[in-house]
């Protein structure tokens, strides 16, 4: 059994918070460059130039790409043959978030109670931690800070199995078009199909982590991704919702077995500053 120190998880997570907030992943930057070539709208071209300059500036000056440094959402894969020297992974990750958001001057965006007093916790905790046990003795941590503007445009629907492929296309396209300029398009569209209600939502979020433009391994789903993307971009919503050829950079679908009575579909959006960072301990 390999032992990882609690403190090393804390330090690593703190660094990950700064990295994810300030450095746009290479695949996202490449997608912005590629999409700019396909754009013809005058305002939209201006916006693409601003996104690219923003990414350069954020990296060079260590400034967050977006002031909404988000809810710290972690996907952890913990080997069955690894353990911490003390405490729990949840405690270590939260301590890392607390330290990282302070150290890197990130915005604290979490309120303790959602409905009544809505008081800011002042250190951006608690985080959300999705923990999965896997074989081996490694600990892999992926952080996807999630902004409120794009998260608020999420959608979930329990379709009838008879709604089929067309039902999925219509629901996803409609959700993205209705979101308009709110989620800061061009967006990355995460879609979860199947599972249960909450698992479809989980898959939609996880789909956002895939390298941009990498199609689904299943050709049927890859084809579906391409069709949905084409329909979204034909809508003309465009960059910032102010018109243009590119409303979304990519559509990523994850799927899972589901109940014979159900066809759950969830949509989760990331803005063009599609942040994520990962580390293996």
């Amino acid at each position, binding site marked *: 059994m390999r032992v990882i120190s609690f403190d090393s998880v804390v330090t690593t997570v703190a660094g990950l918070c700064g990295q994810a907030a300030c450095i746009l992943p290479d695949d996202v930057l490449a997608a912005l460059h590629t999409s700019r070539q396909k754009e013809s709208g005058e305002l939209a071209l201006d916006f693409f130039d601003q996104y690219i300059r*923003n990414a350069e500036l954020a990296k060079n000056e260590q400034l967050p*790409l977006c002031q909404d440094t988000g809810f710290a959402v972690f996907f952890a894969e913990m080997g069955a043959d690894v353990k911490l020297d003390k405490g729990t992974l949840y405690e270590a990750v939260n301590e890392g978030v607390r330290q990282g958001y302070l150290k890197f001057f990130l*915005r*604290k965006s979490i309120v303790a109670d959602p409905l009544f007093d809505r008081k*800011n916790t002042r250190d951006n905790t608690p985080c959300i931690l999705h923990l999965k046990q896997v074989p081996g003795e490694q600990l892999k941590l992926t952080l996807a800070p999630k902004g409120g503007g794009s998260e608020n445009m999420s959608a979930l629907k329990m379709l009838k199995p008879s709604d089929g492929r067309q039902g999925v296309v219509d629901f996803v396209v409609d959700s993205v078009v209705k979101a*308009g300029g*709110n989620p800061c398009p061009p967006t990355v569209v995460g879609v979860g199909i199947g599972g249960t209600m909450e698992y479809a939502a989980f898959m939609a979020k996880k789909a956002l982590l895939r390298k941009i433009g990498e199609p689904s391994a299943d050709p049927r789903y890859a084809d579906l991704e391409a069709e949905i993307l084409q329909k979204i971009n034909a809508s003309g919503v465009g960059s910032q919702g*102010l018109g243009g050829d590119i409303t979304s950079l990519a559509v990523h679908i994850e799927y899972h077995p589901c109940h014979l009575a159900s066809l759950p579909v969830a949509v989760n959006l990331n803005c063009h*500053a599609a942040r994520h960072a990962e580390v293996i301990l």
Partner: protein
Amino acid sequence: MKYKLTTPFDEKLIRSLHAGDKVELSGTVYTGRDAAHKRLVALLDAGEKLPVDLDGQAIYFVGPCPPPPGRPIGSAGPTTSGRMDAYSPRLIAECALRAMIGKGDRAENVKSAMKEYGCVYFAATGGAGALIANSIVAAEVVAFEDLGPEAIYKLELRDLPLVVAIDAEGNSLY
């Protein structure tokens, strides 16, 4: 058209702007998100004086990051304006607010107040918070400090790039 503008605004200038115009904005603006707007409207309801004078001014819907050493402010891009739809018409009608800066479409009640009293809605570039921070030369909290990132800041802008998304005639790019 392209304009370089400085706050405060008069009604005539605001009514001369058209949806699609590009603007580089300088001068003082105040920040405000939903929590601050809720308090401003509560003060209006109570007949009390607001902590900031909005006459001829612009409100920027933003909750900035804390300033790193040597900078006046951290990243500071726009938040979704729709959350302010419930409050904006009151500020336009009762305080002569002349401009709002944010992202995303506005509700019909906001557009009618903009038409009736003379107010424009500028779109700032959502998700470009670092770039926008470079157009902010000074920042200080002037009200509701307890709200943290949602407090009202007084910002000094220099050439912040904006687009007139909805003008005072009700024309909209959305």
